[in-house]
């Protein structure tokens, strides 16, 4: 089996245990997780620290290999040594702290680092770097030293460094956790654009529910298992489950649920302030 035919990434009954220094298993981080991700999809994974979401993310490009089960990326099994490099190039990873991901003295050198390692000819590297910086909106900073940038700008440079490798999928592990509101917005806009305009498959690990509502599909993890999965509008209706897991319930969704409890006829799919305004105005104009 080469993974599900319609699926770009297939996670098939994956369990994973971290092992201690003695080699003994130290708790199960993933417990029989199965998940299919289609090409071009935008999937958000939410859950607490320790829920297994980062462990799962690291399986998607073979940084970690399953203790049992399989992960297939574009038909390649991540356990297959000979595909390891192809898989890393197909699925790029972006991490939480931009400062740990930036290595060079200028922005463009940093973005060129990956393509240089691929041994590409100079002109091709140049065009890939220019393109990647344009996609994340950082062209004007090409010659700037990375330390002079804001957190959001640094994180966009880190994303450009991954994009310059031309991955088909981007896995981002809490990319906005250390950013201020402006930086968060910049990075989220960049991620949405990469997905919508460049057709890049996006897997976003996040603690922020207002980011997760922007995805096509939300996966909720707890104790190494997927406990809920579906479109944001459906997943976020499960306020009791979110509460039980002590995840944040987005205020608009909580308000919608309370107003429905007061027998206001609001539609199910209200996730944003604008959708709430439209629904309320609609309601007010009827009668």
């Amino acid at each position, binding site marked *: 089996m080469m993974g599900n035919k319609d699926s770009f990434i297939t996670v098939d009954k994956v369990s994973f245990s971290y092992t201690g220094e003695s080699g003994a298993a130290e708790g199960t981080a993933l417990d029989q997780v199965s998940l299919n991700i289609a090409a071009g999809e935008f999937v958000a994974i939410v859950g607490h*620290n320790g829920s297994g979401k980062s462990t799962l993310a690291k399986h998607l490009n073979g940084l970690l290999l399953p203790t049992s089960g399989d992960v297939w990326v574009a038909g390649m099994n991540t356990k297959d040594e000979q595909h390891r490099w192809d898989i890393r190039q197909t699925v790029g990873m972006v991490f939480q702290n931009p400062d740990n991901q930036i290595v060079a003295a200028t922005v463009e050198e940093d973005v060129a680092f990956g393509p240089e390692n691929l041994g590409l000819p100079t002109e091709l590297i140049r065009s890939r770097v220019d393109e990647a910086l344009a996609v994340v909106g950082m062209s004007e900073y090409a010659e700037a030293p990375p330390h002079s940038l*804001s957190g959001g700008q640094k994180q966009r440079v880190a994303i450009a460094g991954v994009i310059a490798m031309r991955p088909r999928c981007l896995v981002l592990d809490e990319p906005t956790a250390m950013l201020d*509101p402006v*930086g968060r917005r910049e990075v989220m806009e960049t991620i949405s654009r990469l997905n919508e305009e460049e057709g890049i498959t996006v897997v976003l690990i996040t*603690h922020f529910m207002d980011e997760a509502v922007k995805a096509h599909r939300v996966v909720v993890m707890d104790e190494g298992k997927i406990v809920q999965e579906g479109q944001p509008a459906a997943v976020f209706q499960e306020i009791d489950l979110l509460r039980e897991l002590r995840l944040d319930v987005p205020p*608009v969704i909580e308000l919608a649920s309370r*107003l429905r409890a007061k*027998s206001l006829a609001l539609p199910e799919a209200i996730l944003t302030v604008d959708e709430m*305004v439209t629904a*309320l105005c609609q309601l007010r104009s009827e009668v």
Partner: protein
Amino acid sequence: MSIEIRGLTHTYNPGTPLARTAIKNINLTIEDGETLAIIGHTGSGKSTLVQHLNGLLKPTSGTIKVDGVDITQKGVDLRSIRWKVGLVFQYPEHQLFEETVWDDVAFGPRNMGLSDEEVRSRVERALAAVDIDTALAERSPFELSGGEKRRVAIAGVLAMEPSVLVLDEPTAGLDPRGRQDMLRQIQRLQAERDLTVVFVSHNMAEVATLADRLVVMERGEIVMEGPPKTIFAQGEQLERIGLGVPEMTALMAKLREKGWDVPDSVLTVDEAEEAIMAVLRREARVGTGGDL
């Protein structure tokens, strides 16, 4: 304990080509027992300002009076100021260094020259205040979760039993559960120990629920100051300086644009629910009005 700041300016690397004025001419009085939040985006001077409150940074000009004592004067015992004003940095867990949780929390009180017995009772109280089980006390701080590490770091400051607690982005990088716990603990500390709390935050929702008063900084200056309801009613100005308002406040603003008569002082889901229902009830346009 109150803190009075007058004409505070701080320039990094003065007299060099790298000179940069991070805060200028700040005037601010922090009242005894209040919870004050400082908001503003990265580089607006928030961290520079709070690092002056316990004398960690020296002003280029201006004065800071803690409990009536000007801490910028020569000969002031800065150690005793640091016992009164406890400062918790951003990502304080990066500064844990002792072999056990207990030793880390005990470090401050031991330096104060307190008796072993007093040190022990302070460490116990501090750990209890941040909900760290004493069973964890003999563990290495590095074995703890991110949220636990941060709470241990805060306990290290609390163990000095300061009257003013200053926290620089206490919830940054925590998961939702860690964030909720942290906010609850700050609230409880404020109430139980009658602490004056100053905290820096990027999260408008947590500022709205926790703070008595907000200070908004932009480019090293205080540009707005007042209770959350007053500040967040000025959404346009906040937006202009790159800050948002809580989601419910934004919702009310958009409803007002559409002709809804709802107040601009709404911060929470409760208040929003009430405001919307009030409009609909007034117009008696919903259902038969029976359960409204």
